[in-house]
Protein backbone atom coordinates (compact mmCIF):
# COMPACT_ATOMS: atom_id res chain seq x y z
CA UNK A 1 0.00 0.00 0.00
CA UNK A 2 1.16 3.51 -0.82
CA UNK A 3 1.93 5.85 2.03
CA UNK A 4 1.09 9.46 1.24
CA UNK A 5 2.50 12.37 3.19
CA UNK A 6 -0.28 14.73 4.31
CA UNK A 7 1.10 18.29 4.54
CA UNK A 8 -1.51 19.24 7.15
CA UNK A 9 -1.13 16.22 9.46
CA UNK A 10 2.59 16.16 8.69
CA UNK A 11 2.50 12.36 8.69
CA UNK A 12 2.71 9.44 6.31
CA UNK A 13 -0.74 7.89 5.98
CA UNK A 14 -2.02 4.90 4.00
CA UNK A 15 -3.64 5.59 0.63
CA UNK A 16 -7.05 4.25 1.76
CA UNK A 17 -7.45 7.43 3.82
CA UNK A 18 -7.20 9.61 0.70
CA UNK A 19 -9.41 10.49 -2.25
CA UNK A 20 -8.15 11.68 -5.61
CA UNK A 21 -9.65 14.95 -6.79
CA UNK A 22 -8.35 15.64 -10.29
CA UNK A 23 -5.74 17.93 -11.76
CA UNK A 24 -4.53 20.84 -9.60
CA UNK A 25 -4.03 24.53 -10.43
CA UNK A 26 -7.06 24.79 -12.75
CA UNK A 27 -8.01 28.44 -12.39
CA UNK A 28 -11.63 29.39 -12.84
CA UNK A 29 -12.08 32.01 -15.60
CA UNK A 30 -12.04 35.53 -14.15
CA UNK A 31 -14.81 36.72 -16.47
CA UNK A 32 -17.00 33.69 -17.25
CA UNK A 33 -19.50 35.63 -19.38
CA UNK A 34 -16.81 36.34 -21.98
CA UNK A 35 -16.12 32.65 -22.65
CA UNK A 36 -17.47 30.88 -25.70
CA UNK A 37 -18.61 27.25 -25.62
CA UNK A 38 -15.27 25.80 -26.66
CA UNK A 39 -13.44 27.70 -23.96
CA UNK A 40 -15.93 26.49 -21.38
CA UNK A 41 -15.50 22.94 -22.57
CA UNK A 42 -11.73 23.28 -22.29
CA UNK A 43 -12.00 24.70 -18.80
CA UNK A 44 -14.38 22.03 -17.58
CA UNK A 45 -13.21 18.89 -19.30
CA UNK A 46 -9.90 19.15 -21.09
CA UNK A 47 -7.03 18.07 -18.86
CA UNK A 48 -3.34 17.69 -19.57
CA UNK A 49 -3.13 13.94 -18.79
CA UNK A 50 0.68 13.86 -18.95
CA UNK A 51 2.95 10.86 -19.03
CA UNK A 52 5.26 11.63 -16.12
CA UNK A 53 5.05 14.44 -13.60
CA UNK A 54 1.46 15.43 -12.79
CA UNK A 55 0.23 18.08 -10.34
CA UNK A 56 -3.00 16.94 -8.79
CA UNK A 57 -5.41 17.47 -5.92
CA UNK A 58 -5.96 14.94 -3.18
CA UNK A 59 -8.17 14.97 -0.14
CA UNK A 60 -7.29 13.41 3.20
CA UNK A 61 -10.93 12.50 3.63
CA UNK A 62 -10.53 9.87 6.36
CA UNK A 63 -7.94 11.93 8.23
CA UNK A 64 -7.90 15.69 8.62
CA UNK A 65 -10.39 16.23 5.77
CA UNK A 66 -8.20 18.79 3.97
CA UNK A 67 -7.59 19.15 0.26
CA UNK A 68 -3.93 19.43 -0.69
CA UNK A 69 -1.85 19.20 -3.83
CA UNK A 70 0.61 16.55 -4.84
CA UNK A 71 3.16 16.08 -7.58
CA UNK A 72 3.05 12.47 -8.70
CA UNK A 73 4.73 10.61 -11.50
CA UNK A 74 1.95 8.98 -13.50
CA UNK A 75 4.33 6.37 -14.86
CA UNK A 76 5.84 5.08 -11.63
CA UNK A 77 2.94 6.19 -9.36
CA UNK A 78 5.59 7.67 -7.08
CA UNK A 79 4.66 10.78 -5.11
CA UNK A 80 7.40 13.34 -5.66
CA UNK A 81 6.08 15.82 -3.12
CA UNK A 82 2.89 17.05 -1.48
CA UNK A 83 2.11 20.64 -0.51
CA UNK A 84 -0.73 22.63 0.98
CA UNK A 85 -3.53 23.91 -1.22
CA UNK A 86 -3.09 27.57 -2.24
CA UNK A 87 0.69 27.21 -2.45
CA UNK A 88 2.21 27.66 -5.91
CA UNK A 89 3.37 24.67 -7.90
CA UNK A 90 6.84 23.70 -6.62
CA UNK A 91 9.65 23.55 -9.16
CA UNK A 92 10.72 19.95 -9.53
CA UNK A 93 13.81 18.89 -11.39
CA UNK A 94 13.25 15.47 -12.92
CA UNK A 95 16.07 13.11 -12.11
CA UNK A 96 17.80 11.11 -14.82
CA UNK A 97 16.07 7.83 -14.10
CA UNK A 98 12.51 9.17 -14.48
CA UNK A 99 11.36 9.37 -18.10
Amino acid at each position, binding site marked *: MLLIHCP*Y*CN*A*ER*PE*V*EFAYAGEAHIARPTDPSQLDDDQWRDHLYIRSNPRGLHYERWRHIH*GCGRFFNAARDTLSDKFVTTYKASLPRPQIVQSEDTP
Partner: protein
Amino acid sequence: MTMHPHHPLSGEGIALHKPFPLTIRPLADKARFSLRIDPDQRIAASAVLGLNLPGNIGDVAYAGEKTAVCLGPDEWYVTVPVADQAEIEAGFAALYAQQPHSLVDVSHREVSIGIEGRDAALVLQSAIAFDVDAMAPGSGCRTIFDGKAQIILLRDAKDRFQIDVWHSFSEHVWHFLQVVAREIELDI
Protein backbone atom coordinates in the same frame (compact mmCIF):
# COMPACT_ATOMS: atom_id res chain seq x y z
CA MET B 1 -41.76 5.37 26.45
CA THR B 2 -38.18 5.36 27.61
CA MET B 3 -35.41 4.98 25.11
CA HIS B 4 -32.18 3.29 25.99
CA PRO B 5 -28.95 3.58 24.06
CA HIS B 6 -28.12 0.40 22.23
CA HIS B 7 -24.64 -0.98 22.79
CA PRO B 8 -23.74 -3.58 20.21
CA LEU B 9 -20.76 -4.81 22.22
CA SER B 10 -22.15 -4.74 25.75
CA GLY B 11 -21.09 -7.72 27.79
CA GLU B 12 -18.37 -8.69 25.32
CA GLY B 13 -14.72 -8.96 26.24
CA ILE B 14 -11.49 -10.51 25.07
CA ALA B 15 -8.82 -11.46 27.59
CA LEU B 16 -5.58 -13.29 26.89
CA HIS B 17 -3.09 -14.42 29.47
CA LYS B 18 -0.44 -15.81 27.23
CA PRO B 19 2.07 -15.00 25.97
CA PHE B 20 1.40 -11.62 27.64
CA PRO B 21 -1.78 -10.27 29.23
CA LEU B 22 -4.00 -8.49 26.72
CA THR B 23 -7.50 -7.17 27.31
CA ILE B 24 -9.88 -5.81 24.72
CA ARG B 25 -13.18 -4.50 26.04
CA PRO B 26 -15.94 -2.01 25.29
CA LEU B 27 -15.42 1.13 27.37
CA ALA B 28 -17.96 2.90 29.55
CA ASP B 29 -20.37 5.23 27.84
CA LYS B 30 -19.41 8.88 27.54
CA ALA B 31 -20.52 12.05 25.82
CA ARG B 32 -18.75 12.70 22.53
CA PHE B 33 -18.62 15.94 20.58
CA SER B 34 -17.36 16.92 17.19
CA LEU B 35 -16.18 20.53 17.51
CA ARG B 36 -15.36 22.83 14.59
CA ILE B 37 -14.15 26.29 15.54
CA ASP B 38 -11.75 28.94 14.25
CA PRO B 39 -8.31 27.83 15.53
CA ASP B 40 -7.70 31.40 16.73
CA GLN B 41 -10.61 30.96 19.15
CA ARG B 42 -9.12 27.84 20.68
CA ILE B 43 -8.55 29.59 24.03
CA ALA B 44 -12.21 30.60 24.38
CA ALA B 45 -13.36 27.08 23.55
CA SER B 46 -10.80 25.58 25.93
CA ALA B 47 -12.17 27.72 28.77
CA VAL B 48 -15.68 26.36 28.19
CA LEU B 49 -14.45 22.78 28.00
CA GLY B 50 -12.13 23.01 31.00
CA LEU B 51 -9.30 21.52 29.00
CA ASN B 52 -6.65 22.99 26.70
CA LEU B 53 -7.52 22.11 23.12
CA PRO B 54 -4.33 20.94 21.41
CA GLY B 55 -3.16 23.03 18.46
CA ASN B 56 -1.33 20.41 16.41
CA ILE B 57 -3.12 17.77 14.38
CA GLY B 58 -2.70 14.43 16.13
CA ASP B 59 -2.14 15.79 19.64
CA VAL B 60 -4.39 14.72 22.51
CA ALA B 61 -5.17 16.72 25.66
CA TYR B 62 -6.38 15.13 28.87
CA ALA B 63 -8.05 16.79 31.84
CA GLY B 64 -9.50 14.37 34.36
CA GLU B 65 -11.88 12.19 32.39
CA LYS B 66 -12.09 14.66 29.51
CA THR B 67 -10.07 14.13 26.37
CA ALA B 68 -9.76 16.13 23.17
CA VAL B 69 -7.89 15.09 20.04
CA CYS B 70 -7.11 17.51 17.25
CA LEU B 71 -8.23 15.82 14.00
CA GLY B 72 -7.85 18.70 11.57
CA PRO B 73 -6.77 22.35 11.50
CA ASP B 74 -10.15 23.45 12.91
CA GLU B 75 -11.63 20.16 14.09
CA TRP B 76 -11.53 18.45 17.46
CA TYR B 77 -13.10 15.28 18.81
CA VAL B 78 -13.95 15.76 22.45
CA THR B 79 -15.12 13.15 24.95
CA VAL B 80 -16.38 14.01 28.41
CA PRO B 81 -18.26 12.15 31.17
CA VAL B 82 -22.01 12.04 30.50
CA ALA B 83 -22.61 14.13 33.64
CA ASP B 84 -20.72 17.10 32.11
CA GLN B 85 -22.56 17.06 28.79
CA ALA B 86 -25.35 19.54 29.59
CA GLU B 87 -22.95 22.06 31.13
CA ILE B 88 -20.64 21.99 28.10
CA GLU B 89 -23.52 22.34 25.66
CA ALA B 90 -24.83 25.35 27.59
CA GLY B 91 -21.34 26.88 27.70
CA PHE B 92 -20.89 26.60 23.96
CA ALA B 93 -24.39 27.93 23.30
CA ALA B 94 -23.38 31.06 25.27
CA LEU B 95 -20.11 31.32 23.33
CA TYR B 96 -21.98 31.24 20.02
CA ALA B 97 -22.90 34.94 20.18
CA GLN B 98 -19.22 35.96 20.13
CA GLN B 99 -17.85 33.12 18.08
CA PRO B 100 -19.83 31.05 15.57
CA HIS B 101 -18.82 27.41 15.69
CA SER B 102 -20.27 23.95 15.42
CA LEU B 103 -20.55 21.60 18.38
CA VAL B 104 -22.29 18.38 17.43
CA ASP B 105 -23.27 15.70 19.91
CA VAL B 106 -22.14 12.40 18.36
CA SER B 107 -22.35 10.39 21.60
CA HIS B 108 -24.70 7.76 20.28
CA ARG B 109 -22.97 7.34 16.97
CA GLU B 110 -19.87 5.67 18.35
CA VAL B 111 -18.76 2.92 20.67
CA SER B 112 -15.39 2.93 22.36
CA ILE B 113 -13.12 -0.08 22.57
CA GLY B 114 -10.08 -0.20 24.84
CA ILE B 115 -7.06 -2.33 23.97
CA GLU B 116 -4.47 -2.81 26.66
CA GLY B 117 -1.41 -4.99 26.90
CA ARG B 118 2.14 -5.32 25.67
CA ASP B 119 0.95 -6.52 22.24
CA ALA B 120 -1.74 -3.84 21.81
CA ALA B 121 0.18 -2.14 18.99
CA LEU B 122 0.69 -5.50 17.30
CA VAL B 123 -3.06 -6.17 17.38
CA LEU B 124 -3.80 -2.84 15.72
CA GLN B 125 -0.99 -3.19 13.23
CA SER B 126 -2.82 -6.12 11.66
CA ALA B 127 -5.63 -3.79 10.58
CA ILE B 128 -3.96 -0.41 10.19
CA ALA B 129 -1.57 0.34 7.36
CA PHE B 130 0.66 3.01 8.91
CA ASP B 131 3.28 2.31 11.56
CA VAL B 132 1.18 2.11 14.74
CA ASP B 133 4.22 1.68 16.96
CA ALA B 134 5.57 5.03 15.73
CA MET B 135 2.57 6.86 17.27
CA ALA B 136 3.67 8.77 20.34
CA PRO B 137 1.76 8.06 23.56
CA GLY B 138 -0.73 10.90 23.95
CA SER B 139 -1.47 11.16 20.25
CA GLY B 140 -4.38 10.18 18.08
CA CYS B 141 -5.83 10.40 14.60
CA ARG B 142 -8.72 9.48 12.40
CA THR B 143 -7.86 6.54 10.17
CA ILE B 144 -9.21 3.47 8.42
CA PHE B 145 -9.42 0.09 10.14
CA ASP B 146 -9.06 -2.97 7.94
CA GLY B 147 -9.48 -0.87 4.79
CA LYS B 148 -13.19 -0.37 5.54
CA ALA B 149 -14.16 1.16 8.84
CA GLN B 150 -13.31 4.72 9.77
CA ILE B 151 -12.12 4.91 13.37
CA ILE B 152 -10.64 7.43 15.73
CA LEU B 153 -7.56 5.93 17.30
CA LEU B 154 -5.99 7.25 20.49
CA ARG B 155 -2.79 6.03 22.06
CA ASP B 156 -3.23 6.90 25.72
CA ALA B 157 -0.07 5.14 26.86
CA LYS B 158 2.61 2.95 25.34
CA ASP B 159 0.51 -0.19 25.81
CA ARG B 160 -3.00 1.29 25.92
CA PHE B 161 -5.08 2.27 22.90
CA GLN B 162 -8.65 3.39 22.38
CA ILE B 163 -10.77 2.98 19.28
CA ASP B 164 -13.93 4.99 18.70
CA VAL B 165 -15.96 3.50 15.89
CA TRP B 166 -19.48 3.85 14.52
CA HIS B 167 -22.06 1.37 15.81
CA SER B 168 -22.57 -0.05 12.35
CA PHE B 169 -18.88 -0.86 11.98
CA SER B 170 -18.33 -2.01 15.55
CA GLU B 171 -19.22 -5.66 15.03
CA HIS B 172 -16.82 -5.97 12.15
CA VAL B 173 -14.05 -4.30 14.15
CA TRP B 174 -14.82 -6.47 17.16
CA HIS B 175 -14.73 -9.73 15.21
CA PHE B 176 -11.50 -8.68 13.56
CA LEU B 177 -9.98 -8.02 16.98
CA GLN B 178 -11.20 -11.41 18.19
CA VAL B 179 -9.50 -13.18 15.32
CA VAL B 180 -6.26 -11.27 15.78
CA ALA B 181 -6.24 -11.88 19.53
CA ARG B 182 -6.69 -15.60 18.87
CA GLU B 183 -3.78 -15.56 16.44
CA ILE B 184 -1.58 -13.85 18.99
CA GLU B 185 -2.61 -16.36 21.64
CA LEU B 186 -1.66 -19.25 19.37
CA ASP B 187 1.49 -17.40 18.30
CA ILE B 188 0.62 -17.64 14.61
